[in-house]
């Protein structure tokens, strides 16, 4: 599985949905993922890719990590993987 499919699998599990129900355009809100679900998803992502995601729940909009949609999350993770495994 590529990064995108692995991220979608994590998000789908958190949202209790099938991966096919999670599109790149989906927002966490659309998927019914609340603040605790988000923090748990980020933890799962860090474990899956062995990376550290800079995310502070107090200032999500100011984090380098953009959570506004599945696409931005995937892009953020791809960037972190290239930076942190370089």
């Amino acid at each position, binding site marked *: 599985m590529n990064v995108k499919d692995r991220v979608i699998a994590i998000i789908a599990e958190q949202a209790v949905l099938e991966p096919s129900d999670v599109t790149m355009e989906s927002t966490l809100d659309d998927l019914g993922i609340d603040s605790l679900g988000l923090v748990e998803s980020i933890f799962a992502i860090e474990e899956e890719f062995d990376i550290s995601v800079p995310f502070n729940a*107090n200032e999500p909009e100011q984090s380098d990590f953009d959570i506004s949609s599945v696409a931005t999350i995937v892009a953020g993770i791809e960037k972190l993987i290239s930076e942190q495994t370089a």
Partner: protein
Amino acid sequence: MKRVVITGAGTINALGRDVPATLEAMREGRCGIAELEFRDVERLAIRIGGQIKGYEPESHFNRQQMALYDRFTQFALLAAREAVAQSGLSFHGDLADCSGVVLGTSGGGLNTQDENYRSVYEEGKNRVHPFVVPKLMNNAAASHVSMEMNLRGPTFTVATACASSNHAMGLAFQMVRSGACSVMLTGGSESMLCFGGVKAWEGLRVMSKDACRPFSANRNGMVQGEGAGVYVFEEYEHARARGAEILAEVVGFAMTSDASDIVMPSKQGAARAITGALRDGRIGRDEVGYINAHGTGTAANDKTECAAVADALGGQADRVMISSTKAMHGHCIGGTGAVELLACIMALRDGVIAPTIGYEEPDAECALDVVPNEAREAEVDVVLSNAFAFGGLNAVLALRKV
């Protein structure tokens, strides 16, 4: 119903080793938050806290005591000694039998757990010290205070996360008010600043890496502290008969549960606790001059708390002063309400309102008078202390000038 007064106060926290030093720091708006110092701190992403630096247990306790006293128990004992000394009480006979201890803590002997788990899991040792259990148990602090002071009535520990101390003090208040007890030692203690303690908090992603800035638009999370506050709650006639100095009267208390979310605060739950404390103390909204806020510096707490205060106090919310002293001493978790009650007593007795330091940018969602950055002189007759815990558990105390 009996009247309940405070006749002794004690503390140790990042701002000071006793009450006078802490109040002086609060008046000056000093920040006790600095780089954390403990084993493995370099493996943490969060490396600041309100840690009590240069603390040497051996200057207060002997070797046998240190083998039994976790850091949170030591803090509770030091605060209790100061409080009881100020009250002038000693406990014998009937007074000992109808006096007790209610203390709050969230983590209990967390340092003891951390050290011993490290020893058996990381270092592979197969033997631990025989006193690990009595050292780490949550009621250890309350029990040792009862033993050292000879308090033989009701003694127990309350654990409601960040509201533990306020719940503890509220119960102590009710026990003295009802006539069940003559004197209660109450407050709380916490010492979570160890690798495991901070690592767990880090996971929640609500901690700030640089500073605690309650109510400020650029706030970015909470900063942990440690320490204890202990008070002597005494039945009014008992205190008067012996000519005790009275620091303040405890007049109202209420507790509510949000019954909604395990971490997100609720405006309604908080407002019901504030309103309940006023009703319990027969206090008019216009009488409230100062509120020591829960004010954690997280995005969620501060705006919810301000909205709750606005709902509960109506027009008085525009006049009341509300400050969070957590920016100075850090969030002392289960001991925090007890450390913060000092700011309430200072407001009533000295007419000095402790500031909210670290305040940099107004936030439209926290548009109350948060006493930014500098202490203020003001005469107030009634003050509130807010505590709103994870788990949706809220506890608000009301104090009045005597």
